[in-house]
């Protein structure tokens, strides 16, 4: 299941297998005299989702069509069940500093990348993380979410306050806030807590706390839907990306006095 729409009104849309999700990441390659290969990659990869519908009526796709034609103003966000079960945080927030990009910044906008040990596939693995500063960091970009309960977890190099969260309404005003503390777990330090979006809350923001001691780094963050505790294993970020909805490609299959049926193909493209 997917939810698609502007901030605060993520609405369920029907999808059918197979949805292909290719990722586009700009890259180039050069070969040196010695045969050494150098690959350059863009820091961000962008996904797209192609949804196919067969013999459905225009009423079934009225919402998607109006998103595509701009009837419902954007920006539009795509909430997928895949992300809800794996990790609703985008890559630069789930793994701050991945490919040099971080949505978790220190006060003043600084990004300093460190490492944190987190359980990945059952093995304690060193991953990218963001260093905390002497004061609390800047709030991250908003992760748009439907109302409900979520579990937020993360890994840290130290015990103590690991990350601060807040939910905000459509005007950016804080609705609720809280912090998560890390405690010793599986050879590292991990913290997890429930975050609930209620009332007018439309999204979640995170920020780095003031460091508990020198070299305090935080990473491997994970946000899942529901209030069930997560497994200790970390999973990579899928995010709730901003998307553009391409105009539907329509193949008319049947037009009678009582019924219209068409095949549709609609592509959603991630933007940032």
């Amino acid at each position, binding site marked *: 299941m997917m939810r698609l729409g502007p901030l605060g009104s993520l609405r369920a849309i029907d999808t059918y297998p197979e949805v292909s999700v290719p990722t586009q*990441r*700009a*890259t*180039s390659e*050069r*070969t*040196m*005299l*010695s045969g*050494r*290969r*150098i*690959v*350059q*990659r*863009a*820091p961000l990869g962008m996904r797209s989702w192609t949804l196919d519908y067969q013999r459905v009526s225009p009423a079934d796709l009225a919402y998607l069509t109006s998103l595509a034609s701009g009837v419902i103003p954007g920006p539009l966000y795509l909430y997928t069940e895949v992300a809800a079960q794996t990790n609703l945080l985008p890559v630069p927030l789930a793994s701050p*500093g991945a*490919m*040099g*990009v*971080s949505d978790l910044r220190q006060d003043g*906008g*600084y*990004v*300093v*990348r460190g490492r944190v040990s987190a359980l990945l596939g059952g093995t304690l693995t060193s991953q990218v993380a963001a260093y905390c500063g002497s004061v609390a960091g800047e709030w991250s970009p908003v992760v748009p979410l439907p109302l409900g309960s979520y579990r937020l977890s993360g890994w840290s190099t130290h015990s103590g306050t690991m990350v601060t969260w807040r939910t905000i309404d459509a005007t950016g005003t804080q609705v609720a806030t809280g912090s998560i503390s890390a405690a010793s777990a599986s050879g590292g330090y991990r913290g997890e807590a429930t975050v609930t979006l209620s009332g007018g809350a439309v999204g979640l923001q995170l920020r780095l706390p003031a460091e508990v001691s020198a070299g305090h780094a935080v990473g491997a963050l994970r946000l899942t839907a529901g209030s069930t505790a997560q497994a200790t294993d970390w999973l990579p970020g899928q995010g709730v990306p901003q998307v553009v909805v391409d105009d539907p490609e329509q193949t008319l299959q049947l037009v009678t006095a009582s019924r219209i049926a068409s095949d549709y193909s609609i592509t959603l493209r991630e933007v940032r």
Partner: protein
Amino acid sequence: MTKGATVPATRASVDLGDGAREVDPLEWSSSRSLSGGGLPGQARAVTGSSVGSGSLTIHDDSGATPWSATPPRPGGAVAIDMTDNLERMVDGGASAWREVARSRVRSISAPSLLSGERAIDFEDDVPRGDVTVPTMLAAGSMDACTVIDIAARQGGYYATRPPAATTIMSLPLVGSLRNEVGPDGSSTISDGARYGHTGEIDAQAMLTDSMITARINDDLSAGPQIHYVVGLSTVILDTSTHPVVLYLDGEVGELLRVQVNSTGVTLVNASTSVTATHAMTSLTRVEVLRQSNRWDLYINGSYRTNVTANPTDAIASVQVSATTAGLAGGLTVDENGTSVMGTAFTPNAFISPAGAPLEAVIGANGDAWALIQDIARATLSAAWIDERGNLIFRGRDQMRGGPIWATVDVLDSMEDLPWSVSADEVADRVEVTYRAPVVSRVVDDSLTIWESTDTVAVGGGKTVTIVRDIDGAADRPASWERVEDTGTYPAGQKSRYAAWTAPPGESGSAPAASALDVTSEMVTPTRLRIRIRNTTGSTIWVYQLTARANTRALPGEPVSIVSGADEATARAPFTHDAGSWVQDSASAAEIQSWLASSLMSPLPVIGPASVAVDADRLLGDTIVADVRSAALGPDGEPLEAIKIKALVSGVSQSAQAGELRQSLTLTALHSIERDMADYILRTLGPSATEADWAAHVTALGLVTEDDLAAFINKGGILP
């Protein structure tokens, strides 16, 4: 070295007429290349000049067109930074961006009226505008780079602090002791002043190894309400043992000594001394402020400490002394000048000596950048605007190979390294032409600089102005006397005029001395302006004018130094005209012998090389291209290991998403004496003897002179 997998990133800001703003570029390209030096490709040096240019494509969210309320306008600033690996940058901290360009928008275009895409062409901002170089006749105390400094300052590029409204004395000390404000400096060593540069890339030409005196004739004791600031805007030190010293002297003796070495600054007066420690390794500004009862020390504009003013005499003169290890620049005295402390100064011109001592500067004016290019070409130097937007001028000794900046592993970091050897660029006759000026000096105003026997009629009460170009250059013309007045001065002294109350040949008489008021001045070093005012009521005819001065410089006849075939049989002669920017035979001979050594036999030329991106490779860097031994030869046998010393004479870079490309133009350089000295020091230690060297050569298997030459040729002595 670049890692195999990298995440290149760029950031840019551009001002399209509505203020500088950050933009996310779609793509950009930038290139810098030294050219125009007129040297064949195989010459073992780079000269000339570079004006960087490039293009930047952005998406303009405002969508402004030329018909909008705030239309996009060219002329704004463009800044592009890059990193070859964003990952490494965030691991290392937030400040690892490397500058690509600090440039100016030349043109803006859009592919469509409906498109937000803007293609921006940019070009470096070189010093522009007319510049007049004043008459400079200071024998032995000038280097050609002083003219570069004058032109650079005219264009807003400052190697030392520019004068403020409060400045009563300013001597840049870049290549000369000339004043910018206040009195000229004078050197106390017999052969004039000396100029040097540090081994660092941020070289400045400054006074070294001599002492200058700059006398302040004003009374600087006028009381506690007037605060004098005396300081050096730029102090560069190599080692701690030899300080730069600034002496502030009164009429009868020393008032204060300011000693600067690499650990800090010490203020010394007759009764006491205080020291302020400060890391002085970079370009540092040091100033002292005279208060009513003490001297305050400021380092880089911040107050540090003070010492009692004792005795409290007026400052009568200021002296600077530096050693070969220390360089000083920008001697300034400010009156009531505490305001200058608040103005941060960062040099944006780095000017090294051209290695061409000048007797005199004759008739130098014109466009600032054209003048800089002309001097760079004549003295085999190079001038360019670098990636940070600074003006760089490097003399020929640096362009033949400065300190080796990096060793580049060719196999691992270059896509290829094409080379060629051609007989086309070989010269069988090398001729260097220079002009030494004839500088004459007297003290009795007896040197004639201009003469006229044309008749000039000056009407009653009228003023006639005559502007004439003189032959050569002169300093201040002498005051004017009548030809008849020989009582005080002989007829051969002073500027003279002859006048008659009627047209010459008709009946009349010589007018009284007070009848004509004649004054004159040099408009430019080579242009004389004479004003003749008739104070009587009737016309007077002036039929002879002779302007005289104490110092006169005439352009000398061209002198040529030649080697190789004679003129009749030479088939490929090479001529280098150094014009008036090389004025001594020693410099000319050095240029000639060096040109001959690199032009008289075929030498390899390296083509443009596409390299793995390294943001640290800058135009003008000297690098060693290291081709380590590898099984790569065309016959399958291991390629012999070689090292090539080369200067980066061109850098071009381009970027788009996920791709950053860099291509270097390399000019091969000869190994110079210093490389050999470094090699001996590195391999045999500081106390090596001739016997040690002989044993070392034998151990290397070098039997003949040719063996040693081959060893050097393949870079055996390079690090």
